[in-house]
């Protein structure tokens, strides 16, 4: 079946005329129609069919790029011209973006086919996709479980083969954690690798987009299309984009893998630990050297992140004022009433919580104790990694302390935050990180996290691809 092909295989299929982009697109649209996971907020069928027909004509003329005609699902945090862009919020339920994000433009320029916009935690704040205005997404491996978040719709769509790949964003783990919980390959590149222009901002010094695919090879193919300098994003890195598929086949003999002892301490589920250690053993048998390392400040990542991110969010989300776009309350009696009710009615609980925490931490008298202190701790966390990367090439560990948990089971915000322990440091330090399928615990997928030094995406993808040549976890699927 077409939906079981990887992107690499679909590219060949389109080139050899085994099937057309229209056939491929229609096939996925049918699958989306039949899906009961709530993975999509909007399905853009008509537009997809038009794009697929155009892609077929370009393919026929022979002037296609490698990704022409490949369908994808776009996280609903990326602005798409003329298409609703909600960020999972009531605030933007009626927002039709008047412009394209740079990433949308880049994928369009290859004549790829957008199937729709995927569900997510409101403004990317959450680890379970339960904070969406459009209802939670279900985990395709067990529909009573969460898919993870915030890119939960993207992860569920790829895992259930209703889209060959999806875009995601990762501020504190929002690509890697749902990838782990849904058993797919998720890559958060180095901060600044992919343009943030038109990607609705949560915490600007942490946000980064990335591909969510089934295989590392597909991830490399898609990163090639996503990465690159953008003058419209002042934090975009003006750095050459290598061909990420080039070094996939390099041997891992002599690769130095660091295991941070802090990532294997109390709180890590035994079943998850077993899967991760088995994967590490596989790497050892492939010729890698395993070295115990220490990231002593990583235990402070939770308080540091849950100050830095809410502070930036309280500032970023002040733009939603009911004046220029987005939700406006009925009959405001004065300007303050307009602001207060538009924002209170438009935002969900978790978003309001984070805005308030940020507003408090930034307020006069508390700035030094919270925001400034958190930035100093962020420096220490970053320095830990600098030291470790003098010794090893890649750091490995779990992505999430547990496999997917039951929908509705974690009610307390702090307990939800604590589950982000293994992913937050990577964002604070701006490093690239990946989650790759490594096995199962109680019939639920478990991901292995790969962390590299800045700009080491090639090495991470190579390390992930070599593992996928030796294992078939990434080929296992909850659907036929």
């Amino acid at each position, binding site marked *: 079946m077409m939906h079981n092909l990887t992107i690499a295989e679909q590219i060949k299929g389109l080139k050899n005329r085994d099937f057309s982009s229209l056939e491929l697109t229609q096939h996925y649209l049918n699958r989306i129609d039949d899906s009961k996971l709530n993975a999509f907020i909007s399905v853009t069928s008509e537009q997809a069919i038009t794009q697929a027909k155009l892609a077929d004509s370009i393919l026929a003329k022979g002037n296609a790029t490698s990704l022409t005609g490949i369908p994808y699902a776009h996280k609903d945090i990326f602005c798409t011209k003329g298409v609703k862009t909600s960020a999972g919020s009531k605030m933007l339920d009626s927002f039709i973006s008047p412009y394209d994000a740079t990433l949308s433009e880049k994928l369009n320029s290859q004549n790829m086919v957008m199937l729709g916009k995927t569900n997510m935690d409101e403004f990317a704040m959450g680890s379970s996709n339960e904070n969406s205005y459009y209802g939670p997404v279900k985990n395709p491996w067990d529909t009573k479980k969460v898919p993870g978040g915030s890119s939960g719709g993207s992860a569920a769509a790829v895992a259930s083969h209703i889209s060959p790949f999806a875009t995601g964003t990762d501020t504190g783990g929002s690509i890697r954690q749902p990838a782990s919980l849904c058993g797919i390959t998720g890559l958060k590149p180095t901060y600044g690798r992919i343009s943030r222009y038109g990607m609705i901002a949560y915490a600007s010094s942490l946000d980064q987009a990335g591909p969510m695919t089934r295989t590392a090879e597909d991830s490399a193919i898609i990163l090639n299309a996503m990465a690159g300098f953008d003058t419209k994003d002042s*934090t975009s890195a003006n750095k050459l984009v290598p061909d990420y598929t080039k070094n996939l086949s390099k041997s891992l003999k002599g690769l130095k893998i660091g295991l941070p002892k802090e990532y294997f301490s109390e709180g890590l589920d035994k079943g998850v630990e077993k899967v991760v250690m088995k994967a590490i053993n596989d790497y050892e048998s492939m010729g890698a050297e395993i070295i115990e390392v220490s990231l002593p400040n990583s235990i402070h990542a939770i308080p540091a992140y849950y100050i830095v991110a809410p502070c930036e969010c309280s500032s970023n989300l002040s733009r939603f004022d009911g004046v220029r776009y987005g939700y406006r309350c009925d009959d405001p009696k004065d300007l303050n009433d307009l*602001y207060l009710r538009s924002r209170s009615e438009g935002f969900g609980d978790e978003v309001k919580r984070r805005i308030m925490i940020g507003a408090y931490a930034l307020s006069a008298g508390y700035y030094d104790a919270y925001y400034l202190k958190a930035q100093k701790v962020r420096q220490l966390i970053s320095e830990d990694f600098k030291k470790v990367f003098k010794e090893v090439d890649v750091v490995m560990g779990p992505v999430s302390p547990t496999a997917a948990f039951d929908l509705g089971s974690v009610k307390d*915000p702090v307990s939800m*935050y604590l589950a982000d322990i293994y992913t937050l440091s990577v964002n604070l330090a701006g490093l690239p990180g990946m989650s790759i399928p490594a096995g199962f615990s109680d019939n639920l997928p478990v991901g292995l996290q790969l962390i590299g030094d800045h700009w080491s995406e090639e090495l991470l993808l190579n390390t992930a691809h070599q593992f996928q040549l030796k294992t078939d976890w990434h080929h296992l699927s909850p659907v036929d």
Partner: protein
Amino acid sequence: MSLDNNKVKEIAFLARLSIEDSELEQSTKELNNILGLMDQLGEIDTGGAEPMAHPLEMSQRLRDDQVTEKDLSEEFQEIAPKTGSNHFLVPTVIE
């Protein structure tokens, strides 16, 4: 540090959010729990660590002072909740 209901109302107003009286107790409890987590930072010795505002060592790019954006005022007004004679409309501020 611990917040009481009045302080929570004050912070909410600073952020232009309103909290229903019926939800105030619960909000205060949740925010105090989160604050408990944040207060762990106070115990860390950060020595002479420089505050890190940004993950990359990069400086702000400069560009020529030229208008590069297209005029999209019409498109932007089209999606606004309320407009009139090329302005975004809000309730009367000054009588």
